[in-house]
């Protein structure tokens, strides 16, 4: 081997090392490969790679590997230059470090050979430590990009569930699941200020919190707990500060938790918070990336909340606040929708229902009693129609019912009759049994204007009233003619 100039040797070894490092896509494999190559290149019995004070990998100690971390501080500090490798005896150690670009890594080798490491070997190890340091930096960058990608994927799941109007509970659950999985947290919870009791802070979603603890910390005064602090301060807070609430603190300290929380807001007001907790003491701090991730999840919970409250407000505008039935506008919308889904073999009909005797209740028992009666009546009406039929409040004591999918007109008449019979049963209003009745007009959809359909049912209802109340009439052209001739108010 006389023709092996040493500088050529080290250049080739470095080239092999670079090629070896670039072969691997994950850090564990790259570390394994690097320590193997260190042993092979230097004929070493032992090789280790240390980042900061953490041993990323070592080879040569076999079953005694656990002893390696304790040996490193003295070797890295230069306090010792030998390593006793089990089975190989005392070996001379060489350390070269790469301390730049935020990476502090050390390559350690040791071998039994009595020859000291020569200048070329020392230089080669230094160059290898640089190569490894740069590779480590690349891995860190890649892994942070992968984490970012992972975060974006989680957030897009939440965004989709918001846009699908999956329901606030579902969206908040997916926020909790996302945050727990991404941050690998042991527990997470979301609290919102209770709508009906603004002094309370209610647990609305949680993950990893035992059932008995959930019951214990379900409702706490606003401002207490780490979620209370986030709510009060309107910013992300870390749980190293004292936690006020005994229950929440009690739980988090039970699991030896480190926690952080971020506020959730709606229309410019802080209305809740999301908190995550980690068991035990293995974690010392949260990285900036983790804090940023929690804030992003909180932001998404806020969007979901605002969206849900907007939907709620929209629904409020479409529903009658007294009976919670669709109002005239919504009923019209649904009617239009039903017609667009029209099946030629089946028919739709509208029932127009006007109460008989309601004015008397209002006059004798007061408007409160009248409202109570309307509320109960709306509920009873909903039971008397078929599932899927739509009951709406037209106004005053007038109600409309949309019947879908009728095979024959007799079905509509049967339903009208069932309603009439059902409403004859007395209602309990203010402790008194109240008897009222109704008159119903039925109009079948013949493809005319929708507003005409309700109007025709209305005409038929008047005909029913004229024919003695407590009955139904089906609209026909004759009905219209008769009504035009003898229309008089009946109440």
């Amino acid at each position, binding site marked *: 081997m006389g*023709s092996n100039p040493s500088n050529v040797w080290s250049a080739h070894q470095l080239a*092999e090392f670079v090629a070896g490092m670039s072969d691997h896509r994950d850090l564990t494999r790259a570390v394994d490969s690097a320590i193997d190559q260190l*042993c*092979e290149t230097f*004929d070493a019995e*032992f090789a280790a790679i240390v980042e900061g004070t953490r041993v990323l990998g070592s080879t*040569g100690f076999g079953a005694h590997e656990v002893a390696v971390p304790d040996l490193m501080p003295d070797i890295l500090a230069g306090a010792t230059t030998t390593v006793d*490798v089990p*089975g190989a005896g005392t070996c001379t150690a060489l350390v070269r470090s790469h301390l730049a670009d935020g990476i502090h890594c050390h390559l350690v080798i040791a071998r039994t050979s009595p020859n000291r490491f020569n200048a070329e070997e020392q230089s080669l190890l230094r160059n290898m430590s640089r190569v490894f340091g740069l590779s480590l930096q690349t891995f860190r960058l890649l892994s942070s990009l992968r984490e970012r990608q992972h975060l974006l994927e989680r957030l897009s799941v939440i965004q989709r569930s918001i846009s699908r109007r999956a329901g606030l509970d579902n969206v908040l659950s997916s926020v909790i699941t996302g945050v727990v999985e991404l941050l690998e947290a042991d527990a997470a919870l979301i609290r919102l200020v209770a709508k009906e009791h603004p002094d309370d802070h209610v647990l609305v979603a949680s993950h990893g919190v035992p059932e008995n603890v959930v019951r214990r910390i379900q409702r706490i005064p606003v401002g207490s707990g780490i979620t209370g602090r986030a709510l009060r301060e309107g910013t992300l807070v870390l749980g190293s500060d004292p936690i006020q609430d005994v229950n929440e603190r009690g739980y988090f300290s039970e699991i030896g938790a480190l926690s952080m929380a971020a506020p959730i807001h709606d229309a410019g007001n802080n209305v809740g918070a999301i908190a995550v907790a980690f068991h035990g003491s293995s974690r010392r701090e949260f990285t900036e990336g983790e804090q940023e991730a929690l804030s992003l999840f909180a932001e998404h919970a806020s969007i979901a909340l605002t969206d849900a409250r907007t939907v709620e407000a929209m629904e409020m505008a479409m529903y009658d606040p007294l009976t919670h039935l669709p109002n005239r506008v919504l009923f019209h919308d649904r009617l239009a929708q039903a017609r667009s889904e029209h099946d030629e073999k089946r028919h739709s009909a509208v029932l127009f229902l006007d109460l008989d005797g309601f004015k008397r209740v209002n006059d004798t028992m007061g408007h409160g009693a009248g409202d109570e009666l309307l509320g109960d009546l709306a509920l009873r009406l909903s039971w008397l129609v078929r599932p899927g039929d739509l009951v709406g409040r037209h106004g005053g004591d007038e109600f409309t019912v949309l019947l879908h999918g009728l095979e024959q007109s007799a079905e509509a008449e049967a339903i009208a009759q069932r309603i009439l019979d059902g409403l004859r049963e007395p209602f309990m209003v203010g402790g008194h049994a109240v008897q009222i009745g109704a008159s119903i007009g039925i109009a079948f959809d013949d493809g005319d204007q929708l507003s005409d359909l309700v109007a025709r049912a209305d005409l038929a209802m008047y005909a029913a009233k004229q024919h003695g109340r407590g009955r139904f009439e089906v609209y026909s052209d004759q009905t219209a003619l008769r009504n035009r001739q003898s229309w008089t108010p009946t109440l």
Partner: protein
Amino acid sequence: MTAPNSQDTASAIATRWVRVGRSAATDAAEAAREVTDQAGAAGAGTKLLVVFADHRYDMRLLLAQIIERSATDELIGCSTAGEISPDGAGDGGVVLIAFGGDGFQVATHSAEFIAENMRDAGRAAATAVAGLPEQYEHTILMMLTDTFAGDQQEVLRGVYHTLGAEIPVVGGCAGDNLQMVRTYQFHKGRVLTNAVVSAAISSTAPFGIGAKHGWQPVGEPMTVTSSAGTIIHELDSRPALDVYLEQFNLPHSITDDSVAFRRFAMRHPLALARRSGDPLVRFLRGACPTTGGLQALAAVPEGANVWLMHGNEDSVLAATHAACDEAFAPITDPPLAVMVFDCVTRRDMLGDVGIQRELDVINQRSAGAPVAGLFTYGEIARIRGINGFHHETLVVLTVG
């Protein structure tokens, strides 16, 4: 062929024995009967059976019959490119090496589908050591593996990571009589391929391992400028095949006959430079005329410094002496047995007469202890450091 050790007497060391059986019978059941009888495998205290068999046997029947007729089912083994027994080198037969006595402790292990992750396979094979019921002062790991699965040095890296410097490793790659199609590894009654089988052997007396090749470099050192795993595309930025053919003044037409090329390549391997100056020999398995590449039996990394090698009978036999010197150095008394893992390329180069000369050298050193082993497609001897996979090398194991 029974070779009971003459020291079967009182002391702990003397309660250990190694006996060898050999059969040329082609019928598996008959061969099993012969080798177990000769090795006294049915005797109480039998701890480990090591089987080397021609790849054409009905392997399942062979192993089942050997185990049936033995006092233990702790068995490892493999198919061969020829068997070595106290009778000399042979083909088409079976050799059984039985270890027994209180002074040995044994545990075996196998890992399959090793091509998927050679390093993990090595780690798995190494767990045999943890399975030892008791560990005496001297422990080795014997390992038999499938050369076609991939880079065998990866297996050694995995073993070293698990066992460290403390446990020497010895063994070789199974053969198939140069068919280069499929090799088998044996574990207990199972016949495996794409596998590594291992036996941790712990003993009250020392083992010795020697590994030498005897090849000499020719020409100037070169750089592997392009390679992928076991395929070498370029040497010094030129098609590797061109460089190889030019070095040895060979016509391109030799690549038309893959058998002829392989036969030449066996005697003219590649060597990788190492710091110690003792290069790692790499057998070239074939050439690809269309891409101009060479295929080695183990990975040749890009950037590596390599030489082409050649050998002659004298240099190869000089290595036999040197390997014996190394293997006999740790033992003071005559050995119980000597095991040989000899590269099939050395057999090819030395011929029948030369191989007998090699075995005569070993037999002379063993002083009457049985010598047994096989011709391999790659040899394993990790004595110090992490490097332990060899090509075109003779590995000698003395059981002290």
